[in-house]
């Protein structure tokens, strides 16, 4: 028996609601229990039954294959009787009509004659299908549907997502095609759309959806007052032009291409990749056509004479996880990287689960293993290594000497707009600090200046190059021996040293007096080592330099602020090149017969006393002969200042320091310049130590960005590797056939030119095919994701699987219309975004109506907008913006905001220390936070941001106590609350009620209701009383800033109110 659905819904009658179910529901609930699509789960049961109920679908409505039958067959039958020929049972295939009819599995019109019908109704456990042990029993209503379908002739339909795209007829004349499709469906369901959202709600929604930031109260008021006819459109155009639009649009794209700052496997080292993120943001901001966007990412390196930006885009091919774990086999990991890229194309462009075909033909979709490996073959020309290290068990000449600290080749240096700007800012800051340093030093030590100048000039007379050669006694460690001649000679020693053992030679110097600002090491070729400055068979120097002053019973360990050598190989720490040689000095091969020098400058100059002992340790497994010297002078700070001793970067320069020192100090009459030298030299030590430290920090920051360029992993093409089908995905099995690049065999193929004359198709061909007019998947997949961004759920809720196990779209014609419009607009993303947000459907009120909650609880018919919690990054941005703390700078290296201590303790190779930002970089947008794949920042993880190890088309949307704890206690949000409190207390408003009103408006976009205001006011009063009685707590809770005229207790109480404001539903929800 089939069930006749009721045609009328009684909203408040639960029993009535039960009865509205038509017989498809059950099927679709099962199907709808799809994946991680949490919040919006899926309940498209409601969608399907609601219309068939409300529109009074005829009882004899013939089951449609795509809508009703394919989901059943796919889930219950195709596993054994589907596309995978290897696993096909009894030779029977049900996914193709001819095959199903051939053996009378299905006899159209005659259920009783159909083997399928007999088997699904069999009672014998050996005969019944599906077999009981697979736990896939058919539900009674599914059986009924199958019967009706066979009775009606068992017609098949091609799968909706693979059908060529044609523009469907818009059901009614309307300003917006979107509205026409949505309202057509609503009308059939006898549902009315909701009224337009009020102006404040609408502007906040648009702002959050298009820029990820809320509107200001001023913008809200202006928009409310704007009665001109195009007011809404003008706001939309303004937001689309905002540079924050690209930042908002980038987030889902970065998820789907798995952009992260670290490599993900094992040691999870840094990879240099941020310029790619900036490329994505800019691409959205400049509205780069999506086909061009695709081309540049997939094959930017193959374009004729690629621009720097196109090469940056090609970093896309390097976003897969990679390893340098000891013991990993290159062949195995190359296979993994290829598979990863195929999955990426599948998820990001095709909305298909191609990854399933790595080990076997797909169980549900017509994707076979050949498709998988042929797609992989497109990427076999990418220069890369399976294991990014040179291990003895798999020596790799390309990666000679590469270890855990090194970057992941190949890389190029690219100009970055943020860094160029940042360099200017830092340089100015450095100049300001230096001025201040000189001023303070002169204030404190003016009386010493003249004596210093006289002494220094005397010193220079004696030592015209500015250096005092040191005559030490030496002691060698462990297996080393050393002797002193004119230089210190480390004896050749045949005893083998451990690879990790860095022995040292300590030199002790006595009878020194006066200022000490710099130390110098010269490596001297020596006959002991056959004219080399290195021992034994070494070709490169590696030096760890340290020094201390022994003063009586105590020791002063000398810290350095900078070091520079005239010959140096780059030294890396977790992928980043160190700005100078302070931590470690390495020489490149080929200099062993030269005299080479390095200078270390003390972080705080010292005044040596006659009884002091200066002890310098030269740690090195290679150095053979050297001399040491000291100088009372140091380089001054930055480029803008006269650089008498340093190089243009203000670093101590061993080439300039000698002669320049002498000439400059001896001859100049420029008092200001001399004062600068004074301020950096030993004589002024301790005059302004904090400023000096600050200046050193600023100098290092500046050095790291000074040229405005950054390294970036990019795609570099090479001769393609051979690609084989790997049986069962086994990388060691070389028995599979060789494949060449090809696209999915069941879709329109590459143009003939791509393969003409035996030409091997390239990633360029792949990229062009992805966005060709004939490809039915890319535009559908992209528009489906875009729909989700603005409406909460995709038209097909399963964003990453448009295949048979996904969900047929709720509005298939609308999805196709959007896809065609997207293509025909010239892949114009902004055009499509504008179409979506200009629609009445988008601009509706989102309040849940009780009658809708009954028939369409997941809002798939869109009789209202959906209310949605903000995504992780925007939860952060929103709070910082409300508080007035947000740093709106764009792009640049990823930033390190507050994070719980020790969170990276379990990462090794190398060990990680999280260094929190100390300046305004602390308050950058969430998009720019450092993305550590193995340990994602807890705030991001708690709010469902993905680790980006795999491509993620859809974030889950959970609601957990960890989120509450984050908003309540994470220092970022605590500081935001304190900052908001200060903002409110400084506002020109008449009283606390007005202040609460302003705070609520800042946080939620609208004024509080009477009850809301009352609750906040009561909270304020209670906290005020509490903090007045507890001064110590108040001082802590108030935060670092007390606004003029506000007491500590008041500020603390308002901080508490603001914590409430940042925690409430309406603040973190886009309504």
């Amino acid at each position, binding site marked *: *028996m089939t069930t006749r659905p009721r045609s009328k819904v009684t909203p408040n009658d639960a029993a009535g609601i039960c009865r509205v179910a038509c017989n498809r529901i059950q099927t679709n609930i099962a199907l709808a229990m799809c994946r991680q699509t*949490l919040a919006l789960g899926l309940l498209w049961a409601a969608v399907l039954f609601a219309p068939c109920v409300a529109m009074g679908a005829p009882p004899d409505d013939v089951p449609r294959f795509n809508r009703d039958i394919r989901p059943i067959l796919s889930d219950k039958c195709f596993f054994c009787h589907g596309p995978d020929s290897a696993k096909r049972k009894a030779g029977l295939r049900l996914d193709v009509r001819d095959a199903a009819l051939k053996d009378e599995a299905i006899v159209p019109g005659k259920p009783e004659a159909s083997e399928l019908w007999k088997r699904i109704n069999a009672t014998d456990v050996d005969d019944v299908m599906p077999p009981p042990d697979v736990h896939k029993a058919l539900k009674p209503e599914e059986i009924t549907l199958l019967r009706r379908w066979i009775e009606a002739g068992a017609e098949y339909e091609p799968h909706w997502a693979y059908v060529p795209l044609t523009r469907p007829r818009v059901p009614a004349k309307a300003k917006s095609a979107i509205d026409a499709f949505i309202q057509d469906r609503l009308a059939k369901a006898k549902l009315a759309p909701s009224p337009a959202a009020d102006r404040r709600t609408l502007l906040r929604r648009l702002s959050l959806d298009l820029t990820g930031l809320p509107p200001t109260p001023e913008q809200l008021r202006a928009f409310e007052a704007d009665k001109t006819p195009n007011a809404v459109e003008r706001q939309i155009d303004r937001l689309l032009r905002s540079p924050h639009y690209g930042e908002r649009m980038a987030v889902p794209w970065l998820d789907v291409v798995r952009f992260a700052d670290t490599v993900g496997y094992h040691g*999870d080292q840094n990879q240099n990749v941020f310029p790619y993120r900036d490329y994505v943001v800019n691409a959205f901001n400049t509205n780069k056509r999506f086909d061009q966007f695709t081309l540049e990412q997939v094959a930017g390196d193959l374009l004729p004479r690629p621009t720097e930006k196109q090469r940056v885009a090609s970093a896309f091919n390097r976003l897969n996880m990679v390893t340098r774990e000891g013991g990993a086999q290159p062949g195995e990991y190359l296979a993994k990287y290829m598979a990863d890229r195929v999955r990426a194309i599948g998820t990001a462009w095709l909305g298909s689960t191609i990854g399933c075909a790595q080990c076997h033909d797909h169980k549900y979709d017509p994707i076979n293993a050949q498709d998988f490996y042929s797609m992989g073959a497109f990427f076999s020309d990418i220069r890369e290594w399976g294991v990014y290290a040179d291990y003895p068990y798999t020596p790799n000449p390309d990666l000679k000497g590469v270890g855990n600290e090194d970057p992941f080749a190949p890389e190029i240096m690219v100009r970055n707009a943020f860094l160029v700007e940042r360099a200017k800012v830092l340089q100015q800051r450095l100049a300001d600090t230096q001025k201040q340093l000189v001023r303070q030093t002169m204030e404190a030590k003016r009386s010493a200046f003249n004596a210093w100048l006289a002494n220094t000039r005397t010193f220079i007379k004696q030592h015209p190059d500015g250096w005092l050669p040191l005559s030490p006694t030496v002691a060698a460690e462990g297996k080393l021996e050393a002797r002193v001649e004119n230089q210190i000679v480390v004896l050749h020693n045949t005893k083998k040293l451990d690879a990790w053992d860095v022995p040292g030679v300590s030199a002790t110097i006595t009878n020194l007096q006066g200022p000490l600002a710099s130390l110098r090491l010269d490596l001297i070729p020596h006959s002991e080592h056959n004219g080399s400055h290195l021992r034994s068979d070494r070709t490169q120097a590696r030096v760890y330099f340290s020094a201390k002053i022994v003063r009586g019973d105590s020791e002063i360990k000398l810290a350095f602020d900078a070091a520079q050598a005239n010959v140096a190989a780059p030294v890396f720490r977790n992928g980043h090149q160190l700005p100078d040689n302070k931590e470690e000095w390495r020489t490149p091969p080929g200099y062993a017969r030269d005299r080479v020098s390095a200078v270390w400058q003390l972080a705080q100059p010292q005044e040596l006393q006659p009884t002091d002992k200066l002890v310098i340790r030269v740690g090195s497994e290679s150095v053979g002969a050297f001399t040491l010297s000291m100088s009372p002078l140091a380089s001054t700070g930055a480029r803008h200042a006269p650089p008498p001793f340093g190089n243009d970067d203000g670093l101590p320069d061993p080439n300039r320091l000698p002669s320049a020192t002498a000439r400059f100090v001896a001859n100049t009459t420029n008092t200001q310049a001399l004062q600068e030298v004074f301020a950096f030299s030993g004589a002024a030590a301790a005059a302004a130590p904090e400023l000096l430290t600050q200046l050193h920090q600023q100098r290092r920051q500046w050095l790291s960005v000074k040229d405005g360029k950054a390294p970036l992993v990019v795609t570099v093409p090479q001769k393609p590797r051979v690609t084989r089908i790997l049986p069962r995905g086994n990388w060691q099995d070389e028995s599979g056939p060789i494949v060449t690049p090809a696209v999915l065999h069941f879709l329109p193929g590459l143009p003939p030119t791509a393969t003409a004359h035996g030409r091997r198709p390239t990633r360029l061909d792949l990229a062009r095919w992805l966005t060709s007019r004939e490809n039915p998947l890319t535009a559908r997949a992209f528009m489906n994701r875009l729909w989700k961004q603005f409406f909460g759920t995709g038209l097909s809720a399963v964003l990453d699987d448009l295949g048979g*196990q996904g969900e047929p779209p709720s509005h298939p014609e609308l999805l196709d219309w959007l896809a065609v419009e997207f293509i025909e607009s010239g892949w114009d993303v902004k055009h499509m975004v504008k179409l979506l947000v200009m629609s009445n459907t988008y601009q509706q009120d989102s309040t849940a109506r009780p009658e809708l909650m009954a028939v369409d609880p997941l809002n798939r018919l869109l009789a209202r907008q959906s209310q949605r919690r903000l995504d992780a990054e925007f939860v952060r941005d929103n709070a910082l913006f409300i508080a007035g703390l947000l740093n709106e700078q764009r792009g640049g290296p990823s930033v390190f905001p507050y994070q719980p201590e020790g969170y990276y303790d379990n990462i090794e190779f190398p060990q990680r220390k999280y260094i929190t930002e100390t300046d305004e970089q602390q308050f950058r947008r969430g998009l720019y936070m450092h993305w550590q794949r193995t340990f994602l920042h807890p705030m991001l993880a708690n709010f*469902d941001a993905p680790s980006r190890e795999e491509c993620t088309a859809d974030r889950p949307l*959970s609601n957990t106590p960890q989120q509450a704890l984050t908003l309540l206690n994470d220092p970022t949000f605590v500081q935001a609350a304190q900052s908001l409190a200060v903002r409110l207390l400084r506002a020109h408003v008449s009283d606390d009620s007005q202040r609460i009103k302003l705070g609520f408006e800042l946080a939620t976009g609208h004024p509080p209701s009477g009850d809301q205001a009352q609750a906040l006011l009561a909270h304020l009063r209670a906290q005020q009383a509490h903090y007045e009685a507890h001064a110590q707590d108040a001082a802590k809770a108030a935060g670092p800033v007390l606004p003029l005229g506000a007491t500590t207790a008041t500020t603390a109480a308002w901080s508490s109110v603001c914590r409430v404001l940042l925690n409430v*539903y309406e603040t973190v929800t886009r309504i």
Partner: protein
Amino acid sequence: MAKQTGENNVGAYLSALQRRTFLRNAGYGLGATAAYSLGLGRAMAGSASGAWKGVVSQPHFPVRAKRVIHLCMAGAPSQFESFDWKPALKKLHGQPFPASLTKGQQLAQLQNTTLRAMGSFVNFKRWGQSGQEISELFPHIGGIADDIAIVRSMYTEQINHDPAHAFMNAGSILKGRPSMGSWMLYGLGSEADDLPGFVVMVSLGRQGDQPISSRQWSSGFLPSRFQGIQFQSKGDAVHFAGSPAGVTEDDQARVIETVRNLDRLSHQTRLDPEIATRVSQYEMAARMQTSVPELTNFANEPKHVLQSYGITRPGDGSFASNCLMARRLAERGVRFIQLYHRAWDHHSNLTRDMPTAAKQTDQASAALINDLKQRGMLDDTLVIWGGEFGRTPMAQGDGRDHHIKAFSLWLAGGGIKGGVTHGETDELGYDTLPDKRVAVRDLHATMLKLCGIDHKRLTFPYQGLDQKLTGVEEAHVVQALLK
């Protein structure tokens, strides 16, 4: 009849939704819509506290274990110095390793090198009435020999730590797969309503440096509420569980109460069921803020208990201290507890580092079993001790390389038969012998069975498949280990 099934599910949900609308029943973690879409209506419903009750409403098998404690020896301990005594290997020590065994096999760092046999450098003893063979490096575990079942015939598919950790924890090397703790929580829910149901701790002060990843306790494609929560060894035990400076317990309570009041007001006008869920999350957060300090305060643990674990400074983050914490978590109804000790990757210096790592873990592991037993909790607590793979019978300098063909681990409590050794390896310990091989998915199936779950029936639809912890290949419960 067709109609009945369909209607009841929808009806049950909708009435549950209406209850939620009136705030009488708010589940935690999943939004209402999500819960429904996942077919989790039952699990959400009928719980006054809002605690998650799991999707397995009726256990498929008798429940032997109510909770699991996984002592995860990251880096992979050598079976030849712990639980797999190989006298023949010792005789062959220093000699070439038979090429017949290793030909064509995947090796890790020993690839392309000359292979020599390496016998155990320690002696084994027979322990307890059962006479189980355990090395002298583990005398305390020897002392509980009659309570544990040793499996000598484990094998895995992944030869590097990173994917092998993933495989041991999630049964798959693909990223984004749920860990076993997440599966357990999804299936059975938690009995604790003021603590996370899946807690992870990592020892401080260990030797060795095997890195681990938070993906090892990730919920993957399952809702994020099922992810393991890592308790920190420094600072707040749970991230952000400490109130800000100057905010007393009363202040914090007031903030949370005002937030909840305002959210209730929003709910009256907006009718979004997520708001109701949210209100209960803040309640849960408040409970966690008080329960976590209570949990981590060891003051009421008697001295003899601390001594039995070998704890010198309670709460110091040592493996010993974490073992005691595991018992306290188990007492409070936490479903799955995982302790990592990252000290076992002995490619070199085996004779120095293996005894150290053994000493760091031996006493506390045994003490945990004894403590649980004494409290009557061992009967329904399953404890698993082991690494992600084994070590080679061939030498790598003075250490051993990664090995996937055979390794050992042990289980205790929760329906496990004590005093038995299951499976064996060939006489040089290279490969497992047929018949009693135990795959990682078999271990998972066995664990789930003890918890009352048929591994084939704990599924979640993702990327077109009904995904399982045990994957797509056949998995078998190891009956011989069960009481």
